[in-house]
């Protein structure tokens, strides 16, 4: 998968007031700044820096991260749903890449 491709998983249906788990996996190398063992050259860091979780365009959580998060980061957060809506994640890396991903929840 291309760098920045993401999978966002939420339950399709939920009860009003239920706390649902939002899980995501993003394809990204997450390499820290380091010296290449073969060439001895300094390799700059390439990692995700920020991820925002939104529900119906309202900010729920902001995650800031460094290269200490594993490659192809998996993350899980919770969200309390009171109405049907769209869960959205927006994430960016330190080389200017910016992506987003959405999923819908039906609340009964």
């Amino acid at each position, binding site marked *: 998968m291309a760098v920045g491709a993401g999978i966002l998983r939420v339950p399709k249906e939920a009860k009003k007031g239920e706390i649902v788990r939002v899980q995501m996996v993003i394809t990204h190398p997450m390499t820290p700044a380091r010296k290449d063992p073969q060439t001895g050259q300094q390799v700059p860091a390439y990692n995700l820096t920020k991820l925002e979780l939104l*529900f119906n365009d309202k900010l729920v*959580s902001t995650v*800031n991260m460094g290269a200490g998060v594993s490659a192809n980061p998996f993350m899980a957060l919770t969200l309390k749903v009171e109405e049907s809506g769209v869960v959205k994640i927006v994430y960016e890396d330190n080389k200017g890449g910016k992506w987003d991903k959405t999923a819908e929840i039906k609340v009964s």
Partner: protein
Amino acid sequence: MDRRKFLALSAVAAVGLTIAPALQPAFGATKLEEEVSKRLGVQLSQIKEVADIKLTAPTIAESGANVPITVESTIPIDKVEQLWIFVDKNPVPWIADVKFTPMNGQVFFSTRIKMGETSNVRAILKLKDGSYVMATKEVKVTAGGCG
């Protein structure tokens, strides 16, 4: 220099030499302590360990490149502002921080982290009243995962 002065000076020197090693830790703060005070604005020693944060991590991790950790807490979400995750002995101890809002419903965060060697993992919560609490867990790493 007469004898009296010499004795006084050597006494001062002796005291200085014995005190100097005792002062060392204050100047040579570890990377973790520096990072905590830089990012949180408080000293690590001032943060209390509490039992109502649950930090789940494997006791032994086979690969340091992928250590799953989960932070949960029974502290109500509207009292919590932010969560930090640190690994004591990583080259960069700061892993991630998470800002919570009441829309999260509960304090919950799960991810996978890299660990260079066996060390403590820390989850530090900032509460709305400005205080900090934390949970620690030691993870033994049999193969490091940095660089």
